[in-house]
């Protein structure tokens, strides 16, 4: 159940991996859609912390193109119930149950098994 809201907050953290380390790319993703009770206030509050382009490209790769390429500039549209509900669906209802998240920079593969991603680093990636 890696949700896209979680995915949006995660970056590759291998020692010295600083280029193309975000966003991680889903591989062999088994997607599940699970309806969730919306809390639009929470979504609205999360807006300033969101990486929009990362979210849109990731959602597209998983087959959801309900979001516009560019975050609406019009505050009223952005904070409208209709828009926040769309966003709620993408952030909270799309789950990746199996597969992996891969770093485009260093190539580290973060496996996802039963909805829990393994974000542990290997011994040589830890650094001191």
């Amino acid at each position: 159940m890696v949700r896209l809201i979680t995915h949006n907050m995660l970056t590759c953290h291998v020692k010295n991996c600083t280029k193309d380390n975000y966003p991680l790319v889903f591989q062999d993703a088994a997607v599940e859609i699970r309806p969730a009770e919306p809390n639009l206030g929470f979504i609205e509050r999360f807006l300033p912390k969101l990486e929009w382009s990362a979210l849109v490209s990731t959602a597209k790769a998983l087959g959801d193109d309900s979001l516009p390429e560019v975050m609406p500039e019009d505050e009223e549209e952005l904070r409208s119930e209709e828009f926040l509900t769309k966003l709620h669906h993408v952030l909270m209802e799309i789950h990746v149950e199996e597969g992996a998240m891969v770093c485009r920079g260093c190539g580290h593969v973060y496996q996802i098994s039963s909805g829990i991603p393994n974000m542990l680093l290997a011994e040589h990636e830890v650094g001191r």
Partner: protein
Amino acid sequence: MSRQTNSTSLPQRYLIHLARSHPTFRIPELDSCACLYGFGIRLLATGDHYISGASQPSSLRWGHELDSTLELEDAIGRGDSALLVIEFTTGQGVYKNAESACLPVADTRKTDEETIEGFGFMGLTSKINLKKPEVTYMLFEECKFSRSRVLGSPSSVSPDSELTDENSSPDADHLDSDTIGKGKEKLEEAAEGVKPLRVFMGSLVAYGQARQLVYKFAVKDRKFFGNTSMESEMSLLMAGQTLADQGKLVYDPFAGTGSLLYVCANWGSYVMGSDIDGRQMRGKDKTGPGVFRAANQYGVRDKVLDCLTFDVTRNPWRRGELLDAIITDPPYGVRAGAKRLGRKEGGKKKQISEPVKLPNGVWSHEMPGYVPASRPYEMVDLVYDLVLFARYMLVPGGRLVFFLPTFTEEWDPVDVPVVEGMREISFGQGSAQDYNKWSRRLITLEKVKVVDAEGVEKKWDAPTFVPLEADFTRMQINAGDDSGDEEAGQSKKDQTKVPGHANFREKYLAGFPSSAPSTPPARD
């Protein structure tokens, strides 16, 4: 005396009867409730008197001033401390005749009716309906107890007779069990001449609603738990301290079996957990990860955003200020020691810096079931890192709530790292569960906004998680000085002390060797 006649401008006075277990956790929880619901609260007595439950056994209920009754009803629906609340309008002088009111408990039982009749002076003339009362009046007598001289329990006289038993001996648990069983005669004899110090009377506002959650979240009935799962009452008290609420985001970096996540989710927060050991969260059951099964059981699966396996000292969080609260019970190294990635310095094997290819051409770290090497995570490092991590990850006003195990003899309030931008919230001597030589203390820190001379809010960097080694001076341990500026830190260097939680595991396993005579266990 009816509560509908409340004046909204004048603060009302309330008496709140609290749960008697874990007394030092109760006022902080009530304060957190007040904080969350945004109403003012003022204790009508000094903190120490009411906090030290062991030495002042009769003090676990007290008077308050609150802004309005409605807010209190909200709060009592949430706090798991309060058993009942009455709005009191009358203090001393309730009794027409103080002498006759001072009935020892043994006599009171016989003369309930007489006692009730004694309230005739109040002039309540409407129809009596004990089954469905419109207003319930309650009366509390505060009595002084001493262990050398067993005194009778104060009686609570209420027209609502079903309450009498529950309240008849509010302080019984502070008496030794053998003295309680000495029989009626003895009690009668001992109770002679007892006079209440104070009398509170008022109408019942509400019963606490959240106490039942202690049973709802009982670990023994949970679908998934481990040997270090936090018990439900303490989990609830911790969740109260985080101010968990609808639409907030709460995170546990040492989630284990997720005990603290469920209670926060119960208050409507979204929660996330991580642990260096994924097996802790998954369990052995083939039907799916245990944390999700337990979340399902409590109907909060939807609130668990995600659980992830990683070492918090090597964490993948993209940015700071994502979280409203961090709640955690770090593994303190007895049953399950804290671990971090990397090999121990000076160990048998040196940490590798390049990947290793196995003879079959596969990278060793890409083999199924690969578990990276880990080393112990010293408590002093962990606690200090946790505070800095919280300062980075929390939004201003966000809270860090965690348990700190400590060698009681070496404990000092300065053991909690003082850093600029984090403020400790504590009452009296703080909240602690005492296990004689060691104790665990519940620490609550709040992130405060720091603004520079130009009015720009200060942003904090992610911590480096570099071990402090023996260099405790880096911790700026300086009691009462939270300015955090470097000069102050320098001048206090001489005062640095080794925290009571340093090398906790070693001390625990050695039985906490001490030169001082051991003290009797404090009651919790």
